[in-house]
């Protein structure tokens, strides 16, 4: 639990540092990320080298933000098991073979590799988004996209109280483990009471928060405050990357590059 809290804290902190990417309007980053994801995921299952130029997006963003690459690696690591679990069936079930540099391997390995690369790229894009934007700015971006206020406000509240409740849970778990040494989890008899206690405490806290909100004039409506409108450099950012994504999608850039090189050599 502490680890998760730490992760969230870390990403939030990273997003608050002032640098050129963090300072961009959150809507810009959100839209660019979504476009990126759509493009990456739209590649056919056998296209591998054509997919590779898209690695420029995360790499360049990483370079400009000094994000620790370990954070991305970690999350790729967490996502991989399920992906590998499903993807590994591809080589097993695909009965076609293909020749690569003279070796004959199952086509399924290509699709597997494709999935793997897509996993790396999509996870990286997701991490980059939150690590350069931060939750409250993302909330404003969602509001701009006309996402219902109720959802955005309660999203922010959930985010806010995860650390509070997380700490409460950590204390409860510590107390539990001191009286149940060696146990790795909550035993059956305590399932209801342990979780239920946290729930009741959370419920009471919610009542207090509600009171606090009402006392400061809350009546259901959410005012987000002023958000700077996107500037010209935002448009350049989005359009520039979009052009690159589309070009990479339509043209097989590495093949062209490679044939240039091999053409020169031969």
């Amino acid at each position: 639990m502490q680890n998760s809290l730490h992760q969230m804290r870390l990403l939030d902190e990273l997003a608050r540092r002032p640098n050129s990417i963090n300072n961009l309007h959150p809507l810009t980053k959100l839209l660019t990320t979504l476009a990126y994801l759509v493009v990456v995921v739209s590649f056919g299952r056998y296209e591998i080298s054509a997919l590779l130029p898209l690695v420029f997006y995360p790499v360049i963003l990483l370079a400009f933000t000094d994000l620790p690459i370990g954070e991305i690696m970690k999350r790729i690591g967490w996502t991989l098991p399920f992906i590998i679990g499903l993807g590994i069936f591809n080589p097993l079930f695909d009965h076609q073979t293909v020749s690569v540099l003279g070796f004959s391997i199952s086509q399924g390995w290509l699709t597997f590799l494709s999935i793997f690369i897509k996993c790396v790229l999509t996870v990286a894009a997701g991490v980059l988004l939150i690590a350069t934007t931060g939750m409250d700015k993302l909330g404003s971006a969602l509001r701009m996209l006309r996402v219902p206020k109720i959802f955005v406000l309660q999203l922010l509240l959930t985010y806010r109280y995860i650390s509070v409740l997380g700490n409460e849970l950590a204390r409860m778990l510590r107390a539990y483990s001191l009286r149940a040494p060696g146990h790795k989890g909550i035993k059956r008899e305590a399932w209801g009471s342990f979780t239920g206690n946290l729930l009741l405490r959370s419920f009471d806290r919610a009542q207090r928060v509600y009171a606090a909100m009402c006392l400061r004039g809350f009546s259901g409506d959410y005012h987000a405050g002023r958000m700077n409108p996107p500037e010209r450099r935002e448009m350049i950012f989005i359009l520039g990357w979009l052009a690159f994504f589309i070009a990479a999608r339509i043209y097989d850039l590495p093949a062209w590059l490679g044939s240039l090189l091999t053409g020169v050599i031969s």
Partner: protein
Amino acid sequence: MSHHRVEVRDLYFSYPDGHEAIRNMSFSIYHGESVGIIGANGAGKSTLLMLLMGILFPDGGEIVVGDTRLTRKTMTMIRQRLGMVFQDPDDQLFMTTVRDDVAFGPRNFGLEEAEVEMRVEEALAQVGIPHLIDRAPFKLSGGEKRAAAIATVLSMKPDILIMDEPTSSLDPKSRRRVMELLKTFEHTKIITSHDLDMVLETCQRVIVISNGAVAADGNAVNILSDPELLDRCGLEMPLSLQNCPHCGCSKLSRDRF
């Protein structure tokens, strides 16, 4: 000015489970007064605060703020004049940045964003944490949270400040800072606390609650140096007034105030 006055008349309140929390309570608090409300746990202090803010509604009697009776209809208007600081600042800091929390109240009043920003900066300057404006609440220390929570209320420019245990869980320096801060406020102040030394320093008047009723109401020094009264109400004297632990001589014999 009459609109800073808070009057409680013949107040009665019982919880759904039958527990009679407030019995026939009456008192008046005037403009600019600093009143400490003290009592043992379960005496009814928190209930009283909730009744004052309109979170609970009395079974009998009434609460009048200024010239307006507190009812469901007048609640919103009255809440603009009363500002309550909760015991647990985490309940009050529910947005993702300090700025948004302090701005929450003014924004709900429908103020222009420029005015809101000004109020936010003013409030944070008043409590001494202007540098924390963009900090996330989970990164604040206990004292900083407390200051931020106070700022969230100050930005609404209330006439009357109600504070529930403002110095609880604070380390000595933070506690001192909050106490000094309270002394600078010119608002009418109603403070509940177990920290009797703080009450002695910051409040001129003290109301003692015992078993849901007012047991004593008067000058802070007088009440807090009356050991029998305090003992009857489940309290004891503030540490600063108790007998010297070394020589045993009474501090009351000297003219402290």
